[in-house]
Every structure is written in C-alpha cells, then in structure tokens.
C-alpha cells in the first residue's frame, strides 16, 4: 500500500515536471497541435504536413477530412458552435465573404503585403472582404475536357487538340459523343461535378446568362434570363437523351471515364494524375468547350486556408498556413500528392512542367493550356455575402434539372428560394 502510494506521488511529480517543461518551451515559440479540417483525402496533405513538421518540430498538424458535399454545412455547424478543435480550415473561395461576416475567420491583414507578392492579383483579391484579408490562397484551378481517344477512333472521329483557338463547341461534343455511343461506348459526355455551380456556371456565362448574382451589393439574383434557361435546357437534354448518365453522384464520376465508359469528360487538373495511373486506354486533353456563337468561359478559383477565431492555438495555425501559401517549398508540397496548381506563383512556375511529365504523352501541352485558360478565359464565381445560400439552391436545381425537371420552372423556383433565404438573413 505504502509502496503504491509512493509510486503515485513519484509519478505525479514526474508528470508535473514534464508539464512544466512543455509550458516553458511553449512560451517562447508556437507549439502544440494544429487541427486542420478540409475536404481532401488525407494522403493529399501528408507531404505538406510532413514538410511543415520538419521545419517546426514543436508543432504537430492533425488533419481531418469531411467529404466535399457535406463540407460547407459541417463548417457552419462546427464553427457556429465555436468549436475549438478546428484551428485551420480550408475555405471554398466564394464562401469567404459569409464566413468572414459571421466572424468565423481570423483577420490576417498583417500578412497582406507578403500575400500580395506571393500570388496573382486575382488570388490575392479573392481573400479580401470589408477591406481586410481573411485567408491565404493555397490552390488555383481550371477545367479541362478529357477524351477517350480509342472511343473516338472507333467511331471514326478526329480528336480535339489542346490549342485554345481550336476549342470545340458543346454542340460538336454532343454530336461526337452520340457517334461514339453508336460505336459502342456507354455514354457520350459527363461533367465531373455534375450538379455543382462551379462547373455549370460557364454554361450560362457562355450564352450570356451571367453569374446569376448582380447588383452593387451583389444581392440581386437573376437565373431566369434566356442564357440560363437555354443552357440548362441543353444540359437537361444531355441526360434525357442518354448522352450523360443519371444517378451517378458528384464525386463518383471520374471512375466512369477511367473505366472507359464515357467518351468526353470535363474535369480538373487533379484528374490528370488520376487518369495517368488508372486509365488503361489512350486518352487526351482539350480546352473546355463553349456554345456555338457564345462566349468562352472557364471556371477558376479553388481553396484558401484560414484560421478559426475560436482556435486556442492561433500562432501555430498561422505559421502552418503561411508555410503552405507563402513559402514556395510549402506551396509545392501541397500539390505533391495531387495534381493541382499551387496559388503561389513561384511554386506554380516550378510545378506545371512536372504536371505534364506526370500525365505522360496523354497530357502533353496541358501546362500551357492551363496557364492560358487561367489568364484568358477564366470567369470567377461571384463574390457575395449570400453566395452560400445561392450555391446551395442552385445545386439542388441542377440536380432536379438533371433528373428531368423543366429548366425554366425549376430555375424560377430556385430564384424565389434564394430571394426568400436572403430576405431572412440579410
């Protein structure tokens, strides 16, 4: 009994010593654990976390993944409850205004000059709201059209090229897709984020429908103009006619292409690496199409990282996002395990030639194409404090139009849903 009591006392003393040791080292420099929340697979961020931990041995980064289609809601739920177990989180760029207005993002204006010199003007400005900077851009994006060359050959069709001047129209893609289907492939066309605004906004933009949000305060919704209705009629028809498959969920789409079941697939740079390893047929890359007689519009924008205002370890959290966004080595590490363009300009210049190498002969010319799209044809998503409600109502409308709802009626319904949601919140 005596001995066990002595052991407890000795143990407690050692524990106290260890604790005091920890706090002594913590007082001089940031340390401890940084909890990081994002929508990507954990393997994606393993390299940047490892590189950061090598540089800061006193800090450990723990990453948690929340699937993309639940990400925005989970953030609202947890940040709204002042959840201290999130220090750093990935911010879908158009959601930044609302997150900042809600007080869920730490003001990072102190890093403004560093951020300005590290990335492009567009990627710097996207993190500004109300004259302050709230996050740091980590990635950038664009969309590409992948095609199954074997399927096109089987149908006796000539494949598109990577040259933006020879960009195909959606009508061309539709005809070629149908011919490929007749020659035996299951589907003609599939968009990767099949029910998401990010990928479908360019369809309406191409026909002059605009982003859907307008006005000085960016709080007027207009998704019932001719551009929107016409583009959604075309989109709904691709499913009604069997050119595209119904019932395949948002992020289950890439395997449909890599399994060789669809002729044309519109996806992101991240698919280059995936298809290089998964697809065992001949494939190639072309620019994202536009409507005949319409404008060329391609998506842009990606993820920034910000610090949670409820975090208890803000110093270490800030060091981590600075490393990933402002340090070229760190930025490069964020795209080591996936094929995505770092927002950091220096890292991007180093990264793009490597991406082309990774894609092999199928992806030749992809680096140049991506840079050209980002510079010349990119149309960003609207910056509005009501974007979250807008996107959610639009994504539901896209899903219904895909399943056969009348586009004009469904868009009108979405418009009134958005107006209703805004009237209650703003």
């Amino acid at each position, binding site marked *: 009994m005596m001995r066990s009591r002595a052991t407890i006392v000795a143990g407690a003393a050692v524990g106290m010593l260890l604790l005091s040791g920890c706090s002594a080292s913590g007082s001089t420099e940031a340390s401890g654990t940084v909890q990081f929340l994002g929508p990507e697979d954990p393997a994606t961020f393993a390299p940047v976390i490892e590189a950061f931990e090598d540089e800061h041995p006193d800090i450990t980064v723990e990453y948690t993944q929340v699937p993309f*289609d*639940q990400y*925005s*809601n*989970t953030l*609202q*739920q947890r940040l*709204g409850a002042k959840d201290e177990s999130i220090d750093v989180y990935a911010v879908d760029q158009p959601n930044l205004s*609302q997150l900042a*207005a*809600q007080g869920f993002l730490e003001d990072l204006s102190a890093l403004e000059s560093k951020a300005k010199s590290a990335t492009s003007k567009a990627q710097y400005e996207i993190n500004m709201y109300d004259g302050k900077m709230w996050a740091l851009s980590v990635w950038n994006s664009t969309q590409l059209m992948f095609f199954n060359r074997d399927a096109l050959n089987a149908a006796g069709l000539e494949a598109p090229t990577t040259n933006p001047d020879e960009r195909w129209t959606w009508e061309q893609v539709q005809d070629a897709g149908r011919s490929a289907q007749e020659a035996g492939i299951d589907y003609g066309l599939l968009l990767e984020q099949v029910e998401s605004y990010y990928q479908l906004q360019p369809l309406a933009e191409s026909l002059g429908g605009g982003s859907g949000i307008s006005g000085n305060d960016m709080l007027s919704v207009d998704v019932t103009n001719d551009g929107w209705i016409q583009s959604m009629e075309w989109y709904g028809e691709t499913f009604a006619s069997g050119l595209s*498959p*119904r*019932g*395949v*969920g948002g992020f289950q789409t890439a395997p449909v292409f890599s399994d060789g079941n669809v002729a044309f697939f519109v996806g992101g740079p991240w698919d280059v690496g995936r298809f290089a390893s998964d697809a065992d047929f001949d494939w190639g890359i072309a620019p994202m199409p536009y409507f005949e007689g319409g404008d060329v519009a391609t998506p842009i924008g990606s993820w920034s990282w910000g610090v949670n205002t409820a975090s208890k370890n803000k110093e270490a959290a800030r060091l981590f996002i600075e490393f990933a966004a402002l340090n070229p080595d760190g930025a490069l590490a964020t795209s080591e395990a996936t094929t995505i363009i770092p927002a950091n300009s220096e890292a991007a210049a180093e990264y793009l030639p490597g991406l082309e190498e990774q894609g092999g002969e199928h992806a030749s010319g992809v680096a140049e194409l991506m840079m050209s799209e980002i510079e010349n044809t990119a149309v960003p998503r609207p910056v509005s*404090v009501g974007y*979250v*409600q807008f996107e*959610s109502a639009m994504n*539901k409308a896209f*899903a*219904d139009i*895909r*399943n*056969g*709802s009348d586009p004009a009626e469904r868009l009108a319904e979405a418009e009134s*849903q958005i107006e*209703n*949601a805004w009237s*209650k*919140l*703003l």
Partner: protein
Amino acid sequence: MTLASQIDDRDGRVRRAQGTRRTRRRHWRPALVALAFLAPALIALLLLRLIPAAFALWDSLFRTSLLGGTQFVGLGNYVALFGNPEFQNSLLVTVLFTVLINPIQVAISFLLAVLYTRRAAGAKIWRSLVILPIAVPPAVSAVLWSVIYRPDGLANAFLNLVGLPAQPFLTSPQQSLASIMVLLSWVGVGYWMLFLIAGINDIPRSYYEAASLDGASAWRQLWTITFPLVRRPLAFVLVADTVSNLLVFAPVQILTKGGPEGSTNLLMYEIYTRAYTLGDLNTAQAEVVILVLITLIIVALQFRLLRVED
C-alpha cells in the same frame, strides 16, 4: 404550577416535538431516497432534453440577420414557415412517409417474428440473417444502397434478370421516397422483429396445445392467441418505430439531398439544411418545435388507442 411540573411539561413538549420530527423524517426518508435514485435520470432529462427544448422554443421567437443583429419576432418564424412552399412540401412528405412506412414495417416485423418462432429447419439461421443489417451503421447502409440503386447497379441488374425494365429509383420523384423506405425497412424490420420474437416466446405453449386440441387452425391461433398476447410489445414497437422514422436523416443526406423535386425532403433534413446550409438557425428551431409537436401528437394518439384496447 410548580417548578417540577413546569419541567415535566417542557420535557413533554420537547418529547412531542422530537416525536413529530422523527415521524416527519421517517415520512420523508423514502421520498428522498427515491429522489436520490432518480437524480441521475432527472438531471440527464433536464440537461439533455428539457433545457435544449426550452432553448429551441426561445430561439424560434427571434430573427438573426447575418449583417445586422438579433430581433424578437414572436411567432413570425412560424407564420413565415406555414406560408413557405418548401416547408409545406416537407410536412406533406413527412406525413406521407409516416403513414406508409410505420404500418408496413410493423406488419412485416410481426409476420417475420411469427415465422421465425416456428420450429422449422434453419429458422435460427434465417433469423440471424434478417437481424444482420442492424450491425451496419446507417451511413454505410446508405452508401451500400446508393450502389444498388445506381442506373447500372444491382437492383436494375436483378430487374433485367427477371425480364423487367430498368427503373430510375432515386432519380425519379415518384420512386425516390419508396426507395428510401425499402432501404430503411431492410435495416429496421430485423430490429423491431427482435422485440416481437421476445413477446411471442413469452406466450405459454400450453395455450397453443389447448387450442390445437380444440381444433383451432394456425390462422385462428395467430389471431386469437398470438396477436392479443403480444399487443404490449407490439404497441412499444409501433411507438418506437414511429419516433425513429420521424427522425430519419442519414439516407436522405447521403442519397437524395431531399430531391428530386423535394420528394424526399423529410422534416429532419429540412431542419438541417435550413440551419446549416441556409444559415437560418432561428427558423430551423421553429421547425424543431413543430417536429416535436407532431411527434407528441402521434405518440399520444397511439397510446390512447392502446388504452382503449386494454
């Protein structure tokens, strides 16, 4: 009055007072002990149920604007909700769902329970197979069924095998709610069956033997012996099943997001999207209050029916 008698008198009063205190203590003690035993449950009830419910009710009377502050609106959120087509649709879908799924699940559970309590070859193995889906978490079962319901999935492959045309399932506003009901019953029926099996096994075998001697058919035995004697577990299953079906969330979130065209927008999912997608917590709290009221009304009705039968 002498000093001695005064002392006697005082002693008497003291004794009487002590006596009353003792009786009162004796009288109070069981109540205090009972309260002490009940305390953990009462505290949990208070902290986990009543206080959050009061908060929900309180919050539902306010309106919080993203850019402005919070203001008291009284029953404004409730009035707005009943004029909102999405909420009206959600109420309708929830009522339709409740009216259909509960009788179906209870009836199937009851029939399976009767079947698997018969002494037949392999009854225990079949029983285990029916119960097995309980072990699958709701989210996993939803993902599993998303593959089954895909256009090129297992369900259409099976239909094709028996010569029937492919069905749209989750992508059709007419079939999506029924598809979700099938998924939920796959999980639920085995679970509720367990309670009914326990009830049936409690019925003394001698009743059946006597009925057999009197020449009662199996059908007659089922209706006049089994059914009346499992009425209590059956009532429990009906009430618990109804409550659990009013709280369905995961399959809707994972498979349909309330669509197509709001055909699977059950109240729980409607509350979730209003709170966390649209960011309108106050109106979502009003919906919570309405859902609780609906649940209370249905459960009260079911208990009343049970009492009449008794």
